[in-house]
């Protein structure tokens, strides 16, 4: 962590005109006849150490946007990390940008034990690490996500949703990324567990100066963690603003609807 990153106003991750289109119908020769624009020219900026919340209803393109941020879907437009262009033919992924998925039951390999799951990133990015150092780092990250050492030899099916989400978080954090994209990390969990996970995320953010992109349809969760919020509808951004501003003086009718719905 260098000092520059600690400066609050430095932009660490930004997207510029990001567009994702899916072909709905193709001709016999592969020509696209009909397509759906899931993400439509979205630009955003994420400052170092901050959280950008992205809200919107189901089908608004939030998750697709998240997938495009880690280059899991074909997209046009550019992403910049510390003002360096991300993702070209030779760089399909970036160690500093990691993702945590919504469904904790789907995001852990049922046939790998927790140690292997967490260790996988170390194998790729720190192949020179000795076995002891590897284990040390795994144990360290396990402590950070508030899990015991005895989880390591177990398999994912032995854990609850909240614990699994912590394991998924540990897997992403073990290689020390700067930006973590959280794709509805709490929506599959009970309300009490949700609060715990959000608390944990906040603590980790402070400790490691992480920057989050927090995607959710739950306005309360987004409000609890975000510094800035972006509201999406049908693949487009309808409103952006700081959390307070957006909740106190929503401009767009869709934002108002979302806020109203969350209070009910």
């Amino acid at each position: 962590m260098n000092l520059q990153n600690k400066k609050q106003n430095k932009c660490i991750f930004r997207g510029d005109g990001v567009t994702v289109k899916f072909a709905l119908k193709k001709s016999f020769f592969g020509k696209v006849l009909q397509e759906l624009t899931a993400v439509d020219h979205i630009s955003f900026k994420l400052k170092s150490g901050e959280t950008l919340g992205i809200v919107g209803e189901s089908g608004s393109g939030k998750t697709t946007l998240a997938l495009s941020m880690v280059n899991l879907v074909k997209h046009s437009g550019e992403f910049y990390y510390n003002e360096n262009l991300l993702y070209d033919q030779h760089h399909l992924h970036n160690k500093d940008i990691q993702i945590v998925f919504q469904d904790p039951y789907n995001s852990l390999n049922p046939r790998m034990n927790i140690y292997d799951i967490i260790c996988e990133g170390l194998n790729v990015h720190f192949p020179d690490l000795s076995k002891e150092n590897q284990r040390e780092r795994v144990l360290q990250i396990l402590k950070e996500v508030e899990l015991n050492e005895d989880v390591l030899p177990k398999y994912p099916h032995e854990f609850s949703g909240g614990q699994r989400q912590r394991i998924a978080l540990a897997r992403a954090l073990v290689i020390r990324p700067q930006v973590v994209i959280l794709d509805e990390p709490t929506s599959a969990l009970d309300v009490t567990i949700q609060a715990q996970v959000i608390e944990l995320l906040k603590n980790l953010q402070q400790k490691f100066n992480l920057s989050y992109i927090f995607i959710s349809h739950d306005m309360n969760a987004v409000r609890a963690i975000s510094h800035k919020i972006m509201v999406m509808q049908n693949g487009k951004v309808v409103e952006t603003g700081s959390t307070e501003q957006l909740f106190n003086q929503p401009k767009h009718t869709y934002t108002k609807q979302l806020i109203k719905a969350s209070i009910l």
Partner: protein
Amino acid sequence: MQLKEKITIFFNNGRAKYALILFLIIFVLSLFSELIANNNSLIIKYKNNYYFPIFKQYTDAFFGGNFPTPADYNDKLIKQNIENNGWMIKPIIPYSYNTVDYYLTGPTPSAPDAKHWLGTDEEGRDIVARLLYGIRLSVIFAFLLTVISSVIGILIGAIQGYFGGKTDIILQRLIEIWDSLPQLFILIIIASVFLPTFMSLLLILLLFSWTGLTGMVRAEFLRLRNFEYVKAAKVLGVSNFRIMFRHILPNALVTSVTFIPFIMAESITSLSALDFLGLGLPTDYPSLGDLVRQGKDNLQAPWIGCSIFIVLSGMLSMLIFIGEGIRDVFDTRKNS
């Protein structure tokens, strides 16, 4: 699920348990065919020296006979000569798969008696010995065929399913064309040009059998590659090869493993069928299919047909039962 649990579930299926035990006993016994059914003696003590004819050939003249040809330990003169100068231990069945019994009293195929428990075939060879060697041959053949074709099939299916798109479409069309080739006619042509051997027959059957598992593995990979743990591995920068074989394959293998005993049963059947038609192994191999043919040709000698029927159907049923047991192990709905 731990291995221990899996084994318990497997053994809870009584049929599968007994089938596996019986199959293993028969197969292990057949591995030691040379010690059980052999025309050579196991140990001979002759003039204060020990000899092991199953490992080394001795001549007739060596044991007091007249000829420089290999000794026939079933010959009366030799027997007497050895017993006068020491002793010998013979295998339980003193005939190998290709030993012709020249001391038969009746015409071949001869009926079961004390010397030949299941009688002899049309050339005067002991049926028990032929069955024993035949089981070993076909199980090893089927095992090799199953393993090699599964490995190739899983590899191709994995590539198709994981990469999808054009790779998948091109390979899928090629497999469809390949599969629609008339297998039997190609085999007939090949068999008429080359004299088939164990290896060449394995290779020829392999050419067509590898496509069996590809479809299933492909479908599993297509399903699993969209799972979030695979996506997470991609974002972590894990290589395609490692994702395919470390992250997806263990999950995709379940359905394939279930099929392996069934594929093995199929392989035994296809080898026997080819032998039956005379397109398989030459007749000097102890093949089960050749015994089926003899059974058909010699309806007046029902011991041939009956014994080969019981052995073949028994072996195939056992493989099916074992397959069912394995299927139970991986059936998550049944076990939860």
